[in-house]
């Protein structure tokens, strides 16, 4: 059976690429420290020597639209193009190209549907920065096949937080039962407190540092129960109007497991957001 060699949860900051590649006067003052943190985080994936990456993210109204909106969708394609015109325009992100691990996509779809998750699928999926950002930060050589999994954290009605945790648990079980000898890393990205297009956006910190502190505590200690007892679809409006992206972190807590402390935790307080980086090694630290 396949082995889950690393579980990684991260924020996805679309400005990292531009900040980390800027030089001279264009290079922001926070870039060097940010690059150091990201490179240390990258090492936690490198050390696990994965063969395949399962990538959990959320389309930001790029390919998925309100006339046909899936709650949870698995890409099943031999290849994926990536990044969209408006991400090149606003964030300076490059066009990218991925190979798909199509047999694992098929397995997750078949077994996931049979296990009670009516997963949508896509045979031609252009993926966006929720998945390309962690490739840029964690695997910039982009040399591994992927299975993209999208969640709807964006267009209400949304699934409830507990459903994200359940999906995370199921993804973990399915990867571990996949008849293969591949080493799989499961990587998901979301947000802590975040406001976009509202009065609290682009402040000197994330919009709710207290929420961020609690969120980092929940994630780093694997406190799924505590997190679920406080976080609801309604409560997530309070820390910032885009904070529902935190549910992708909850999904990754489900992947990592109840009570499972993260083996690596780091944060970086930036303007606009708190960046947060977590790695678990289910089989022990490599």
């Amino acid at each position, binding site marked *: 059976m396949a082995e889950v060699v690393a579980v990684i949860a991260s924020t996805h900051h679309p400005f990292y690429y531009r900040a980390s590649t800027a030089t001279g006067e264009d290079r922001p003052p926070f870039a060097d420290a940010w690059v150091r943190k990201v490179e240390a985080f990258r090492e936690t994936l490198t050390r696990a020597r994965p063969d395949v990456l399962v990538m959990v993210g959320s389309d930001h109204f790029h390919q998925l639209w309100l006339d046909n909106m899936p709650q949870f969708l698995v890409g099943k394609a031999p290849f994926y193009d990536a990044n969209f*015109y408006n991400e090149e325009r*606003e964030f300076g992100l490059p066009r990218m190209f991925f190979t798909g691990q199509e047999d694992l996509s098929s397995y997750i779809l078949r077994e996931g549907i049979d296990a009670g998750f009516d997963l949508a699928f896509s045979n031609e999926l252009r993926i966006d920065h929720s998945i390309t950002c962690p490739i840029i930060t964690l695997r910039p050589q982009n040399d591994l096949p992927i299975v993209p999994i999208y969640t709807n954290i964006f267009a209400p009605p949304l699934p409830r937080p507990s459903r994200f945790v359940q999906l995370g648990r199921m993804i973990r079980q399915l990867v571990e039962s996949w008849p293969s000898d591949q080493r799989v890393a499961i990587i998901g990205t979301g947000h802590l407190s975040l406001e976009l*297009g509202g009065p609290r956006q*682009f402040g000197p910190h994330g919009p709710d540092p207290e929420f961020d502190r609690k969120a980092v505590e929940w994630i780093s200690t694997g406190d799924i129960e505590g997190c679920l007892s406080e976080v609801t679809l309604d409560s997530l409006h309070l820390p910032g109007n885009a904070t529902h992206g935190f549910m992708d972190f909850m999904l990754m807590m489900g992947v990592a497991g109840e009570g499972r402390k993260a083996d690596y935790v780091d944060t970086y307080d930036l303007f606009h957001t708190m960046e947060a980086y977590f790695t678990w090694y289910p089989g022990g630290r490599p």
Partner: protein
Amino acid sequence: MSKYLLNKFLFTVDRDPELVERYREEPRATVEWWESEYANRILGSHTGESSTWLRFDDVEREALAAHDYPKLFELGAHPFLTLTLFIAMFERDYPPLGFQTEYAQRLSHMKLPYPDIAT
């Protein structure tokens, strides 16, 4: 009232570089053209299978024609779509992060709970 149609306008304009510039320069004419020619297109279908029933109400049409993004927020347009498109149109006229900061300030009268964005 159609939050869906407001979002559809923002979504379809934002992804088309030519339409972004057209909406920046001629907002009223672009909104009128879009409502008559584009609003009823089903995006995955050819134009012979368009919808027949989608239209803005007067308040929505005016908010778009006036580039009135605080009003779009009040009407429940998706804040991510509004922000992304308006950054594309107007960030260039400001110092770095200047437009985003002014945007937040112009919405500072909005208190929780924000308008419902469910469509």
